[in-house]
């Protein structure tokens, strides 16, 4: 156990040192620090979705909606937009320690609101319905510039304040800047190292990510966590054991949404601009791919999956730039147009997400780096017969021919 602690500490130190290292390498520089910052936001999203899918086994395909809610909340409360739309007297500038909990609560409430009506549904229906909710959230944000200009519609909200601390008023007159006590937009120095704004943001995000990992871990081993997993594996049995299915599921939705909402706040402040196009279905699928690739229910796996899939597009960009001239000159048996389409970094990226989902589900449903417990569940060396497949767990490696004997049990667990 002590050994583990040192390992974790080293890992954290490594992640703290990472941006300074990356910043110093001329090939990488602040560009890659920024990419790492975004990677942290995706880690946060993936951790949140992991609670919903990995722990509780609820396939939420509209998860990006919570991210959007957090992002828009910060954008509204820390930008001149509402003032410009004539909805508030002054330019709002709410303090960070109010907005982050507020976003968490708002997202959790939305999670419950979305979760409540779909509780009765299972598996596949749930996926489509949550997907619908995610799209509904996006479409509303795209259109709520009228009758009252709340979200500024497709134009998005710009001029969002960077993350800062101040102890002044919660709003100020237009044109007047607040005087932040501490702003992540300023460079500062740490033991003689220059900490640029991108690095500050990264470090702040890292801090939140570590908090969320600890929270996830505590949840996983808590009573609630174990109840979620029981529910995931066999709903009927779990209910028979006296678990409150409704409350547990709602709690999973709410907890997952919280992470998404906080991540959205950070995104909004980092980028200084939000618009509905950042919250499309493809983003939901990307986060899903991160969770699935890393391993549903495995914190370390999910973090790894999120890091891989968020850094990968940037690698592709460079890779394609290197490969393209060579391919264009040497491959003559395929039409140029097709070649150019094939070597399109954004298409390649989505293709990889698609194949990641296919291959992992088909051949390694526990993901790249499953938790020990999950691995044990799925690859049981135990001579006892494998448990009856439950509706909401991942695959059981049983040949199809054998399964016909399981008919009554299978039917029962559908009910």
């Amino acid at each position, binding site marked *: 156990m002590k050994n583990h602690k040192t390992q974790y500490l080293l890992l954290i130190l490594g992640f703290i040192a990472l941006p300074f290292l990356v910043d110093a390498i001329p090939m990488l520089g602040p560009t890659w620090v920024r990419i790492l910052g975004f990677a942290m936001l995706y880690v946060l999203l993936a951790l949140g979705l992991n609670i919903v899918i990995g722990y509780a086994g609820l396939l939420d395909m509209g998860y990006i909606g919570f991210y959007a809610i957090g992002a828009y909340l910060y954008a509204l409360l820390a930008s001149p937009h509402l003032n410009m739309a004539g909805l508030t007297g002054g330019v709002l500038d709410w303090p960070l320690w109010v907005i982050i909990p507020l976003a968490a609560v708002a997202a959790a409430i939305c999670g419950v609101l979305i979760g409540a009506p779909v509780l009765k549904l299972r598996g596949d229906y749930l996926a489509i319905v949550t997907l*619908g909710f995610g799209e509904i959230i996006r479409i509303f944000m795209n259109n709520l510039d009228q009758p009252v200009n709340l979200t500024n519609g497709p134009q998005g909200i710009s001029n969002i304040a960077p993350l800062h601390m101040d102890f002044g008023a919660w709003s100020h007159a237009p044109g007047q800047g607040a005087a932040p006590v501490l702003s992540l937009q300023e460079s500062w120095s740490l033991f003689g190292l220059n900490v640029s704004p991108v690095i500050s943001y990264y470090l702040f995000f890292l801090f939140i990510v570590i908090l969320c990992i600890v929270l996830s871990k505590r949840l996983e081993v808590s009573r609630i966590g174990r109840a979620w997993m029981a529910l995931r594996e066999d709903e009927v049995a779990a209910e028979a054991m006296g678990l409150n299915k409704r409350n547990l599921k709602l709690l999973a939705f709410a907890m997952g949404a919280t992470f998404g909402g906080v991540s959205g706040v950070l995104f909004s402040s980092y980028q200084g601009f939000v618009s509905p196009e950042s919250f499309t279905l493809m983003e939901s699928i990307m986060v899903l791919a991160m969770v699935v690739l890393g391993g549903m229910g495995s914190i370390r796996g999910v973090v790894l999956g999120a890091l891989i899939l968020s850094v990968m597009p940037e690698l592709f960009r460079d890779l394609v730039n290197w490969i393209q001239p060579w391919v264009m000159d040497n491959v003559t048996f395929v039409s140029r147009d097709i070649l150019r389409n094939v070597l399109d970094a954004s298409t390649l990226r989505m293709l990889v997400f698609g194949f*990641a989902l296919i291959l992992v589900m088909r051949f390694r449903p526990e993901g790249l780096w499953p938790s020990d417990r999950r691995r044990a569940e799925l690859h049981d060396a135990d001579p006892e017969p494998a448990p009856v497949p439950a509706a909401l767990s991942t695959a059981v490696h049983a040949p199809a021919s054998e399964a016909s004997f399981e008919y009554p049990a299978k039917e029962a667990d559908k009910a």
Partner: protein
Amino acid sequence: MDGTFDILLQQVLNGLVLGSIYALVALGYTMVYGIIGLINFAHGEVVMVGAMVTISVLSMLAGAGFAPGIVTLLLAIMAAAVVCMLLAQGMEKYAYRPLRKAPRLTPLILAIGISIALQNLAMMIWGRGYKTFPEVIETQPVEILGATLTNVQVSIMIISVVIMLGLWLLVDKTRLGKAMRATAQNQEVAGLMGININRVISATFLIGASLGAIAGVMRAINYGQADAYMGLLLGLKAFSAAVLGGIGNLFGAMAGGLLLGLIELLAAGYAGQFTGGFLGANYQDIFAFAVLILVLLFRPNGLLGERQADRA
């Protein structure tokens, strides 16, 4: 508002044209769901491939000197249907069949993966832009009680109805249909009765895919273009239609498709007036999802579905 009768009729007819395309796609979902309980998320992509292949074959034929006309169109549709069937066959055999006994989340996520992969593969083959559907049939307006449709739209409705009737006959009267119904009822027992389950399931996928290919072509002809993104939203809406009608029920899919087309058009046309401009046609895509959510909440078996309460 002068919401006169012919304007309402126009909206209704527009809705029925849209709805008959939804219905054909919805049949693909409902058949697969009815028989193996899987939402074949990638079905929308099969529809897209059908449209794109037709356009490619048509332009190849035109390049080879065949004047565009009904004959080349039929050839192209047949080619598209074959490609779609192969695609569906491949999906079923190599992706879904090995996971038939796996927990339901597994094949569903796999299907989402296939959908994303197909969409992007299509972008690689056909590019990311739209493809123009050549004017094979000259469009002519047809007046119906003061409302206007085109000859193409009228044929779309007629062909859809014919296909649906044919499908009903197939499922209700033939041996294959009987085997399909038996398999849907109970795979294991059907297998014991000597039905080759794998063949029946394959056949279901093939029929669904060919219907999808035809629907894709219809949509492309109707709007004059197709692109790699068209499958996703069309698929989701068609799925909503299938749920609305009662998933697993053939007539349900047909009714659901037509109804959803109507709801969408009427909502887009009249929502603005009834909500004082708050909800307009910009919310058109929401209506399909809203219908889906409401149906699942209040009548999870759909309008015509009687069995399968366990599925919801």
